[in-house]
């Protein structure tokens, strides 16, 4: 048996060199930091826990941007965090860099384009026709997107089309469904303005008269005209009107 002892020793030496020598010499020292699994996980967990932030949170934004926050927290976008649209805020906090705001229709349509997979009661529009191709922010203030719009129908219309069979302007006030608080003036298509949430978002007031070929709206509706447009419409031109407001002709 003795003739094998020397060979055995040599083999152990080679093994020792491979497993200890080779590892210590050519493998950089940062690799030597690991003990047997899982001794060192806490160091790594702490390293993960201390990674820098990119996104802050809405309460961080509101501590400075009080005006917009006040609008936002009462509006329909109150569930949408600031950084959803404005992007991560930590760089802005640290360096003051202004985040670049995407104001395109594309950004709004990521949420509001009509898709079969979206919940039916989520407000969606047909982006091909809704508001022409005007930027959404022409009409909607993104912080309070439905401000100035007629109120929504609070219930599901199902297949009913004749709103005035219940909401009759001539009925006394104590009838259960609320009466229409404004004059009807022959309008029958209530849903053109009062879209039920989700089925129709196009709820801008229609032009209450026929156009009969007129194209220069501002002739009557300019500020100081016969019936001036609302103050927040300042700066819009004749070209814009018909993208939102449909006439009585259709």
């Amino acid at each position, binding site marked *: 048996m003795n003739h094998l002892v020397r060979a055995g020793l040599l083999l152990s030496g080679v093994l020792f060199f491979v497993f200890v020598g080779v590892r210590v010499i050519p493998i950089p*020292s940062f690799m030597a930091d690991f003990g047997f699994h899982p001794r060192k996980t806490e160091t790594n967990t702490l*390293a993960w826990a201390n990674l820098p*932030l990119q996104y802050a949170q809405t309460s961080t934004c509101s501590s400075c941007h009080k005006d917009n926050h006040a609008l936002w927290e009462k509006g329909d976008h109150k569930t*949408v965090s600031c950084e959803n649209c404005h992007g991560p805020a930590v760089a802005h906090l640290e360096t003051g860099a202004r985040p670049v705001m995407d104001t395109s229709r594309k950004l709004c349509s990521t949420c509001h384009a009509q898709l079969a997979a979206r919940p039916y009661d989520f407000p969606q529009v047909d982006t091909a026709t809704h508001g022409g191709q005007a930027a959404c922010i022409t009409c909607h203030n993104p912080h309070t997107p439905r401000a100035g719009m007629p109120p929504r129908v609070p219930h599901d219309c199902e297949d009913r089309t004749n709103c005035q069979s219940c909401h009759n302007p001539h009925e006394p006030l104590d009838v259960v469904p609320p009466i229409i608080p404004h004059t009807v003036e022959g309008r029958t298509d209530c849903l053109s303005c009062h879209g039920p949430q989700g089925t129709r978002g196009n709820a801008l007031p229609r032009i209450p008269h026929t156009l009969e070929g007129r194209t220069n709206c501002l002739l009557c509706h300019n500020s100081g005209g016969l019936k001036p447009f609302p103050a927040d419409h300042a700066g819009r031109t004749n070209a814009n009107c018909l993208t939102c407001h449909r006439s009585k002709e259709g």
Partner: protein
Amino acid sequence: MKISRRDFIKTGAGGVLGGVVAYSLPSILRILAQPGNAELPVSAAVIGEPQWEKHHWGFIADTEKCIGCGRCVVACKQENKVPWDEEYNRTWVERYVITEDGETLVDSPNAGRDGFAEATKNSEYQNLEIRKSFFVPKLCNQCEQPPCVTVCPVGATYRTKDGVVLVNQEHCIGCRYCVQACPYGARYMLPDAAQTHFGQVRVVDKCTWCYHRIQKGLLPACVEVCPVGARVFGDMRDPESPVRKILREKRVYVLKPDLGTEPKVYYVGFEKGVH
């Protein structure tokens, strides 16, 4: 040549001892050179004394609320420096379309990063008789019995005491066995061009439920930006947490429960065929 047993043991023991010393030398030098916690990255809010045992995190994904805007995917990629390409995702959104014939179609264009409004499938789906359609947000389930942790040959991926599965990217050898073992496709290997927080490439990366955020009392980035509350995050140890509240109110389901991984992402509004 003759060697006595005694000599043999003496030589062997000497060799082993020498090996142990040589083996630990780099670590010893390192400790001497850099006292303190120099390996921790500098951050505005450093967690000094973590209280890992006090939390056990949970996550709700509500398929009845999700609108498929994909803002969660964008936020995740920015918060965690995930490569922008579609093959690398810590979270993504799938769209399910079930036709009246019972056929189930699924798509996730660019992992849902750009939303679904302009997806090419929209026109194909137009001509189908759709029975129902919905979005499913996906992310790491932080399984209670994670198969990825079991298979890691070097123990580089592990479960923290508060129930999150992390990867020690300075230890990972890049064998990708864990990628194969994850039934949910939640893992990926960082490409050479990746520029992540740890500066490691060709190692495995995965969702951490924004471990650095939740340790500081913030929500994960995807939960923070979700506009409809389809993603809810909270501490399962806290009876008042929103996750516990939903678990009380709703019936929930998990992905691939038959595999026994015990996922901690609970799905509201589940449908047959969602894997």
